[in-house]
């Protein structure tokens, strides 16, 4: 907080170090005084928090910020002070909102979580059944199966698309890239309607898990191909050319040199792709019946997933149902978090390192 008024400057630029005292004093005053006045006014006058924040705190803080800027840098510092105040105010507001999402999922979810919540299914559970019975086990299984099938289909397709975009010199690459970016913004409900109109209305299949997997493909494909494309592009051309110069055919050069070098990027692509689809709700509601029992057969019978489980209990809306929904949301958040951390670790590893020599 002490040095927010100045841009980061080179360490050896000493001349204006003397400014530091004034800046520091002004920053301290401007960051403490308005909050103190606000707290006093809020507690003293018994005002509503949001109203007081907007009508008392923000104007005072802006005035103090402008004063601090003026005191530190003269007339042109006024705008700096205002900018700093506005930025910190909005940032705090956003972080509080986003933090509230995380915190409510974690705290409310932890209350509902228990060992049997992980492995029991939902049979004989109604909205009023206590939390000591039933769980999201079937939904976790369903999520894994449906996401797994989608991943099995989409990863080869997405990586091959990335290969098409990086390794070939085909004329249609620009259009394909544009189409993929357009697909990235495809509303998920439309993906569900697509599979519904293509395969279910025409009577080829009923609403089963496999259909849900298919509906997720157009949602996962753009993520995988984009991230994989970027990681393949990071592999130095010399590496490829070296392999080709040694007489390797293109496909061998790709599988033995380029792909191992881009391995971590591909892993990141897969993890981000799974994270993208694991929380999709709308297409699953349209394409698969939300089952209450454990079903591991994707070609027959309904199948529940974590998002549809949450949706289902959110729809019922009783107190215990909501608790179940929070519990499942926490499980889902943990899944997303694991994928997210995995992707971070994978992408932190340097791309393009030499593949380890395998021992025979």
């Amino acid at each position: 907080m002490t040095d927010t008024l100045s841009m980061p400057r080179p360490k050896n630029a000493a001349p204006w170090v003397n400014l530091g005292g004034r800046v520091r004093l002004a920053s301290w005053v401007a960051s403490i005084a308005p909050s103190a006045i606000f707290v006093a006014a809020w507690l003293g006058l018994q005002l509503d928090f949001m109203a007081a924040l907007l009508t008392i705190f923000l104007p005072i803080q802006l005035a103090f910020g402008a004063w601090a800027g003026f005191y530190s840098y003269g007339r042109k510092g006024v705008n700096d002070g205002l900018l700093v105040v506005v930025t910190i105010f909005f940032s705090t507001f956003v972080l509080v909102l986003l933090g509230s999402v995380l915190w409510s999922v974690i705290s409310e979810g932890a209350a509902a979580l228990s060992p049997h919540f992980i492995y029991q299914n939902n049979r004989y559970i109604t909205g009023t059944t206590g939390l000591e019975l039933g769980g999201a086990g079937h939904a976790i299984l369903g999520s894994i199966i449906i996401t797994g099938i989608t991943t099995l289909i989409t990863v080869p397709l997405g990586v091959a698309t990335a290969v098409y975009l990086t390794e070939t010199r085909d004329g249609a690459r620009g259009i394909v890239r544009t189409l993929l970016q357009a697909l990235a913004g495809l509303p998920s409900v439309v993906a569900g309607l697509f599979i519904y109109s293509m395969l279910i209305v025409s009577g080829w299949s009923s609403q089963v898990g496999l259909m849900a997997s298919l509906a997720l493909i157009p949602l996962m494909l753009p993520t995988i191909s984009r991230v994989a494309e970027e990681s393949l592009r990071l592999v130095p051309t010399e590496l490829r050319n070296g392999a080709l110069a040694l007489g390797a055919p293109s496909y061998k050069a790709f599988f033995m040199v380029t792909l191992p070098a881009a391995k971590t990027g591909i892993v990141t692509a897969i993890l981000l792709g799974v994270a993208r689809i694991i929380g999709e709700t709308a297409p699953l509601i349209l394409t698969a019946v939300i089952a209450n029992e454990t079903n591991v057969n994707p070609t027959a019978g309904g199948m529940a997933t974590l998002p549809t489980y949450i949706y289902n209990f959110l729809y019922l809306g009783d107190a215990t149902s909501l608790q179940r929904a929070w519990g499942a949301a926490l499980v889902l958040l943990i899944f997303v978090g694991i994928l997210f951390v995995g992707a971070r670790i994978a992408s932190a590893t340097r791309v393009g390192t030499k593949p380890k020599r395998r021992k025979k």
Partner: protein
Amino acid sequence: MSNDVAPKRLKLVSKPSRTADKVFFAVAKAAGYSSFVLVAAILFFLMLRAWPAFESQGVVNFIFGAGWNSTSDPQVFHMGPMLYGSLLIAAIGVALAVPMAISISYFIAFMATERLAKVATVIVDLLAAIPSVVIGLWGLGVFSPVAAEWGRMLSEALGFIPIFSNAVDIFLRSPFIASLVIAVMIVPIIASITREIFSQMDQEIIKGAMALGGTRESIFRKVILPTASGGIVGGVLLALGRAMGETVAIFFVLNLTFDEFNWFKILEPSGGAVASLVLARFNEALQTELSALLAAGVVLFVVTLIVNTIASYIVDKAQPWRKL
């Protein structure tokens, strides 16, 4: 193809098989063209099933008219209020989200200490990946009562402005709340793009501006924003597409009104959203209504396709370092 390396005339002791290469490139090409097939198939099959609805309702009436009733005779399926509601909510959500997203990105990139920046980055990036159903759960269970209270205060303080007037005295399930929930959903999306652009920005330009006597504010206004503006606009349009296609989160925090347009009274509990319409009517829909829902899907797809194409074009233009 890319065999610009292997010389043709060179005689190799063991000739590499060209068929394997051909297969390899054919597979890659097929995968590349599969996205054509996918987009074409989506449009074709949706249109095929949606055509009866377009035909019976009339395309213009279907898109712009008001009213949705499967029990009347003849049945009426007009998605005008839903489409307008989608656009309204997305527009307000984006208008709320943009200042917040730019602030948080500027905060992370140029103001926060390293540790604070790291924490904020993790929160923002994790929230960008959080499922929308969880946002819906949070919106219904935690945020709606709070936001309804904000709406009540707004209406009491500024009720003389028509936008904030509320005749029914119910503040839950209004477009205002839906927009706030959408804003919470898309702030991380815009922020992660903006933050990346800010952090990739050439430090020399900023230092140069500082050496010329620029202040924090003037550098932000005259150097950072103009340089990043294209990327920010692209991110905003991407978020707009996401906001219009959002289904579950809006479904739980918005009261859908099919019969009339809610033009601007954002605090009243009536609004529309195309994707939520599909979700709300899908289970009870019979054949003709189903066709109308699919037609609504077609309209939604086309609208988001246009928005996203513009977005990706702008993002590409704004990030020259991403180009090959």
